[in-house]
C-alpha cells in the first residue's frame, strides 16, 4: 500500500470514529430514561430530588449537549472512557478483561469454519452437479436460513442437557466451555464460506492455465493442490479478516445463550442497565478494532497479491 494511501485510510478511520462517537453520544443524550436515577436504583437507594440534582451537576449532566460531548471526547482521547456505574470499575479495564474471551471464541470459530468450509467447497466444486455438490449446496442453503441462536439452543439441549457431555453454562475455565459457542458461530459462517470457496474454485477451474496444465498431462491432484488452491484461497483471506472484525461485535446473541463471559454479554448487560459510559466505550472500541482489522487486511492483501501492487488499486472489501 502506498504511503499517501495509508495516510488517507488512517484519516478516514479518524473521521468515521469521530462520526460514530457523535452518533452514540447523541443517541445517549436523547435516550429516554434518567441515568442518575438508574444509578441510584442500582445501588438500592431512592435519593431526594436535591441529591439527584447535585449528582447531575457533579457528573456534568446539566451542561449543554456540545459541552458534554467535547468533555467526554477529550477524556476518551486521554484514554479515559469513564467509569461504569453498574460494575463500579473503569470502562477500559472491563473491556480489556472481556476482550480476550471473545477473541478466543472468534478465533476458534474461524478455525472450525475453515476446517469445514474449505474441504466442502472444494469437494462441491470438483464434483459439480453431482450428489456431493447437491448435499453441500443444501447445507449452505440451510446454514444461512437457520437462526444461529436456535442452532445454539438446540446444541445446548442435545449436548449439555440430554447427553450431559458439555457444560450448560460457559463461565468456567478450560476448553470445554468454548466448544458449543464456537460451533454455533461457525455453523452459519461455514455455510457462507463454503459458497465462496465453491464459486472461487469453479472460477479458477475455468481458467486457461488449468486446461493447459491438463493438456500437458499434469495429474489432476497436482493441478488442484498446487495451482488452483493457492489462487482461489487468496480472496478468502480478506474475508477472514473482515469476519474476525464482525465476529468481535457480532457474538452477542451466542454469548448470551451460553452465558459466555465476553464482550457481547457485557454490551447486553450495559444496555439493559443503561450504563451509558460502558455502552459508549464499547461501541467506540469495537469500531476502532474493526477498522484497524480492515486496514490490516487491505495491507496484507496488497502484500499477498502482486497483481494489486502493480495496479496500485485498492482491495475489494
Amino acid at each position, binding site marked *: 500500500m502506498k504511503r499517501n494511501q495509508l495516510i488517507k485510510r488512517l484519516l478516514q478511520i479518524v473521521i468515521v470514529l469521530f462520526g460514530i462517537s457523535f452518533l452514540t453520544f447523541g443517541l445517549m443524550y436523547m435516550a429516554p430514561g434518567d441515568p442518575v436515577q438508574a444509578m441510584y436504583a442500582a445501588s438500592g437507594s431512592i435519593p431526594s430530588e436535591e441529591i439527584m440534582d447535585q449528582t447531575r451537576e457533579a457528573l456534568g449532566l446539566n451542561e449543554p449537549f456540545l459541552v458534554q460531548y467535547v468533555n467526554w471526547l477529550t477524556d476518551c482521547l486521554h484514554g479515559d472512557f469513564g467509569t461504569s456505574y453498574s460494575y463500579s470499575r473503569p470502562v477500559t479495564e472491563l473491556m480489556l478483561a472481556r476482550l480476550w474471551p471473545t477473541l478466543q471464541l472468534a478465533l476458534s470459530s474461524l478455525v472450525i469454519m475453515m476446517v469445514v468450509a474449505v474441504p466442502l467447497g472444494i469437494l462441491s466444486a470438483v464434483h459439480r452437479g453431482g450428489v456431493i455438490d447437491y448435499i453441500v449446496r443444501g447445507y449452505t442453503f440451510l446454514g444461512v436460513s437457520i437462526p444461529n441462536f436456535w442452532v445454539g439452543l438446540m446444541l445446548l439441549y442435545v449436548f449439555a442437557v440430554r447427553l450431559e457431555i458439555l457444560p450448560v453454562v460457559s463461565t468456567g475455565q478450560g476448553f470445554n466451555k468454548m466448544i458449543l459457542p464456537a460451533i454455533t458461530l461457525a455453523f452459519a459462517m461455514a455455510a457462507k464460506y463454503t459458497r465462496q470457496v465453491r464459486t472461487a474454485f469453479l472460477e479458477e477451474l475455468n481458467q486457461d492455465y488449468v486446461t493447459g496444465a491438463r493438456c500437458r498431462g499434469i495429474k489432476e491432484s497436482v493441478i488442484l493442490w498446487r495451482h488452483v488452491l493457492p489462487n482461489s484461497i487468496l480472496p478468502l483471506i480478506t474475508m477472514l479478516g473482515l469476519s474476525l472484525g464482525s465476529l468481535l461485535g457480532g457474538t452477542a446473541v451466542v454469548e448470551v445463550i451460553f452465558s459466555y463471559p465476553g464482550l457481547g454479554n457485557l454490551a447486553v448487560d450495559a444496555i439493559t442497565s443503561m450504563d451509558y459510559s460502558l455502552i459508549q466505550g464499547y461501541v467506540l472500541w*469495537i469500531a476502532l478494532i474493526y477498522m484497524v482489522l480492515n486496514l490490516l487486511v487491505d495491507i496484507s492483501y496488497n502484500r499477498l497479491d502482486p497483481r494489486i501492487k502493480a495496479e496500485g488499486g485498492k482491495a475489494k472489501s
Partner: protein
Amino acid sequence: MKKVTSFIKKNPAFTVFFILTLGVIAVAVFAPFIATHDPYEAVLTDAVQPPSSEHWFGTDRMGRDLFSRVIYGARASLSASLSLVCIIVVAGTFLGIIAGYFGGILDAVIMRISDMMISFPGMVLAIAVAGILGANVTNAVIAISIVSWTKYARLARSLVLKIRNRDYIAAARVTGSKNGHILWKYMLPNALPTILITGATDIGSMMLEIAGLSFLGFGAQPPIAEWGLMLNEGRAYMTAAPWLMIFPGLAIFITVVVFNLLGDSLRDVLDPRDE
C-alpha cells in the same frame, strides 16, 4: 390467462415458491381462523403441558397454547420484516439515486455516512440503538434500518453512475426534462430490477435479525406472540419443556427458508444472466 400459464411453465420453481410464500402470508392473515386457542389467554392450570391432541405444540409457562402463539407469531415476524425491507429499500434507493445523480457535496455526505455504517459491525449498533431507544418492535425495525440502508444506497448509486452520462440522458436534459422527471422516469426504472431482487433475497436475513433482537430482549416485548421472544421465554424451560424452543425455532426456520427460496428464484426470473 395464456400469459400466466406460459409464465408458470417457464418458471416452475418461482411459481412453487411464490405459492408457498402466499401460504405463509395467508397463515399470518388468517391466524384467528387457524389458531385453535386464544394466543393470549393464560390458563395457569394448564401450564407447561407437553404436546397433546388438545394443545398440538403444548403450552408455555402461562398455560397459553403454543400452536396458536406460533401461528400468531407469523403476524409479528412478517409485518416487522416486510416493513423493515420496505423502509431500507425505499430510503436506500432514494439516497443512492440522489447521490449518484447530483454528485458533489450531496454525494460526499451521503456516501461518507454510509461508509461510517459499513465500517462497523451492524449488529452492535442495532443492539445499541434498540436498547437506547427502548425495547419494542418498532424501535428494533428502526435500529436495523439505520444500519442496513447503506447497501441499497451503494447499489442504487452505482447503477445510476453507470447510465448518468449516457447520451439519452443528455438528450432528455437538452429537450428540457426536469431533474425530478429524469430521476423518476430514467434513473429509478433502471435501478429497480436489481434493487428489488436484492430486497427480496434480504427478507429472510432481516427476519433473522429481528428475531435475534427480540431474542436478546431488545425487540418484541411480552406478552406479544413473536418467535424470537418465544424462544427467549422458552430458554429457561429447556430441560422441562423442550417443545417451547423447538416449535418457534422451526417456524422461523421454515419462514426464512421459504423467503430465501423465493428471493433466489426471483433472481433467476428477473436476471437470466446469472447462472
